C-alpha cells in the first residue's frame, strides 16, 4: 500500500481585498476571497494526484499554498509528516528543494536573460554551493538536458530560441535537477499542440517511473487527468466536491458538478459521447459565495436543503468522497 506523502487538513487560503485606507473611508468594507476553503486531501507517494476544476476554483492557489508561495490562513500541510505551514525559513528552503513546480506558462518561468545552461545549473549550484566545479555542473546540465530529450547544445542558448514544447522540457529539466520527491505541474500542456502535449505527457510518465516522483497534476483538461492520474479531486469555488481514485470517480461519479463537468468534455470517439449536461450561468464570485452548497445556483438537482445547509464530504466507500445532499437522502 502506498505511503502518504502529503496530507492536507482543513486548509484555508483567503485573500483580503480592500484593506487600504481608501476602501475603508468609502465604505466598501473588507472583501474576502475564499480561494481555498477548508480543503482536506491526501497525496500518496509515487502516484499522480489530479486536481480538476474550472478557472477560479482555487486549484492553482491550493498548489501555491502547498509551496507556501501563498500563506494559508489556517490548516496544516503535512509533507512526510512535517507541517509545511509551521516551517521556519531554513526548513522551508530545504522542503522546497525536495518539492518542485512546473508552471503553466512555459516561457514565463524561464528567466529571459539567462542561458538555458544557467537556468538548469542554478538549483545544482545552490545545492553544492561554492565548492562546485564548473566541469561537473556542465556535465550534469548536459545529462539533465538529454534526459528530457533535448540536445545538450541547448545549454548555450536563450529561452526565446526554443519552441513551446522545448521550453516546457527545459522547465521539466530544472524541476528534476534536484531529484525532488514531489512535483506540482500546473496545466503542464496548456498552449501546446496535440502531438507536443503527448510528448510531454510521455516524458513525465517516464520520469515518474524512473525517479519515483509524486505528481500533483493541476489541470482543467479532464481527458488528461483521466489518463495521467491515479487519484483525483474535483474542486468548485475553493471546495473539494468529489474525491477518489480516478477510475472510481469517472465510472461512478456522484456529484452533479462532476457529472456536468465530465459530460461537457468534447470527445473524439462518437461512442464515448454522452449527453452533455449544460449548466446554467457561470461560476459565482468567490467573494460572496452562495449560502449552503456553493454549487446550488447552477445545480440542475438543487432542492431546499442545499440552500440552508452546507454539505460535508461523505465517504462512499473505497476512498471515494463526495459532498452532496442528494447522497445523504
Amino acid at each position, binding site marked *: 500500500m502506498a505511503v502518504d506523502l502529503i496530507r492536507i487538513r482543513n486548509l484555508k487560503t483567503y485573500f483580503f481585498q480592500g484593506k487600504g485606507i481608501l476602501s475603508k473611508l468609502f465604505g466598501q468594507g473588507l472583501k474576502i476571497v475564499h480561494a481555498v476553503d477548508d480543503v482536506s486531501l491526501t497525496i500518496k507517494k509515487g502516484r499522480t494526484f489530479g486536481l480538476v476544476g474550472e478557472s477560479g476554483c482555487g486549484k492553482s492557489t491550493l498548489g501555491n499554498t502547498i509551496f507556501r508561495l501563498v500563506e494559508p490562513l489556517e490548516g496544516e500541510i503535512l509533507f512526510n509528516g512535517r507541517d509545511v505551514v509551521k516551517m521556519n525559513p531554513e526548513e522551508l528552503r530545504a522542503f522546497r528543494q525536495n518539492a*518542485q*513546480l512546473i*508552471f503553466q506558462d512555459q516561457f514565463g*518561468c524561464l528567466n*529571459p536573460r539567462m542561458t538555458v545552461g*544557467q537556468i538548469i545549473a542554478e538549483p545544482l549550484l545552490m545545492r553544492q554551493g561554492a565548492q562546485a566545479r564548473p566541469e561537473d555542473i556542465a556535465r550534469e546540465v548536459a545529462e539533465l538536458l538529454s534526459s528530457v530529450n533535448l540536445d545538450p547544445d541547448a545549454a*548555450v542558448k536563450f529561452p526565446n*530560441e526554443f519552441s513551446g514544447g522545448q521550453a516546457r522540457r527545459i522547465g521539466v529539466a*530544472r524541476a528534476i535537477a534536484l531529484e525532488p520527491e514531489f512535483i506540482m505541474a500546473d496545466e503542464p500542456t496548456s498552449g501546446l499542440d496535440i502531438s507536443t502535449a503527448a510528448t510531454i505527457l510521455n516524458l513525465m510518465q517516464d520520469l515518474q517511473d524512473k525517479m519515483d516522483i509524486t505528481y500533483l497534476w493541476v489541470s482543467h483538461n479532464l481527458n488528461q487527468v483521466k489518463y495521467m492520474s491515479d487519484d483525483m479531486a474535483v474542486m468548485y469555488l475553493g471546495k473539494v466536491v468529489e474525491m477518489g481514485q480516478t477510475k472510481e470517480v469517472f465510472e461512478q461519479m456522484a456529484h452533479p458538478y462532476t457529472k456536468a463537468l465530465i459530460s461537457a468534455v468534447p470527445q473524439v470517439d462518437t461512442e464515448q459521447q454522452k449527453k452533455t449536461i449544460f449548466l446554467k450561468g457561470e461560476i459565482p464570485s468567490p467573494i460572496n459565495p452562495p449560502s449552503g452548497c456553493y454549487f446550488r445556483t447552477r445545480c440542475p438537482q438543487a432542492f431546499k436543503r442545499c440552500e440552508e445547509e452546507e454539505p460535508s464530504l461523505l465517504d462512499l466507500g473505497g476512498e471515494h468522497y463526495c459532498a452532496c445532499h442528494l447522497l445523504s437522502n
Partner: protein
Amino acid sequence: MKTDTINQAEVGMSPAQLVLKRKWTDTLRVTLRAVVKVKGGLWGGIFISIMLICAIGAQWISPSDPNAQDIMHRFAGPSLDHFFGTDYLGRDIFSRIIYGCRIAVMVAFGAVTLSSIVGVFLGVVSGYNEGKKIDYFIIWLFDIVRSFPQIILALAIVAVLGPSLFNVVIALAFTAFPFYGRVARAQTLSVKEADYVKAAEAMGLKPLKIISRHITPNIMAPVIVCLGMDMATMIVWESGLSFLGLGVRPPTASWGIMLRNGYKYIQTSPWMILWPALAIALAMIAFSLFSEGLRVALDPKERER
C-alpha cells in the same frame, strides 16, 4: 528563427564556463553590436565615441591651450588658425569645445552613474518589499525630493555647497535619483510576479540571490535606456548651471560658460555662441539615438528579429 546568439567560437570560452557564467565584456560586446545595427544607433555611437575620445585626449587633440589668451586676435572668425574662431579674450574656441567635452562627459557620466546606482538600489529594495515599512519610507524619500522643481533644487544645492565641478555632479545626481528609483520600483513590481521569480523562490533560493540574479538583470533594460536619455539632460543642465554662473568656475572650458560668454556678442560674433550650442544639440541627439538603439538591443523580443 535563428537569432544573434553567442556561440562558443565567438567568445572563445570552454563550454563549462559558458554554461555557468558569461563575462560582462562579452555581454557588452554583443549589446553594442546589436545597438549599432539599429537605425541611428550607429550615428549616436560614433558621436559619443568622438566625445569620449575628445574628453580623454583633450590635451593631445586640441591645437592650442584652451585658456591661452590672445588679445590681438579677439573675435576672430573661423580660419585655418582657429577652426571655430576665437572669443572675446582671443581664446581658441575649437580647443575650448574639445575641453568642454571633458566637462560634459564627466558631469553626465558622474551624475548619471551616481544617481542610477543609488536610485536603482533603493527602487529594487522598495519594490521587493512592497507594502512594508521600508517601502513606504523609500517612496516618501523619493516624493520629497521630487516635490521640488528639479532645476530649483539643483540651484539651491550648488548655492549651498558652492559652485564646483564635483558639487554640480552631486546636485544633479541628487535631483535625478528618485526618477531611477521610481522606474526600478515599478519594474521590480512587475518582474517579481514573473513565474521565473516564483520558480526561484520555490527552488529555495535566498532573497538576495533572487534580487541579484533574477530581478535586477530583468529591470535593467528600461533603466539603461533612461540612463542614455538622462545623459543628454545632464549635459544640458550642466550647461544651464554654468550659464547661470553656478556650475563650473571660469576660466574652465565648459559649453555652458562659453554660451554665457558668447550671448553678449551674438550680433557681432555669432560663432562664439554657435559652436557650443551646436555641440550641446549634437550631444543630445547622439545620446537619444544611442539610447533608442539600446532599448531595442536590450529587449530579448526585439533582438530576435
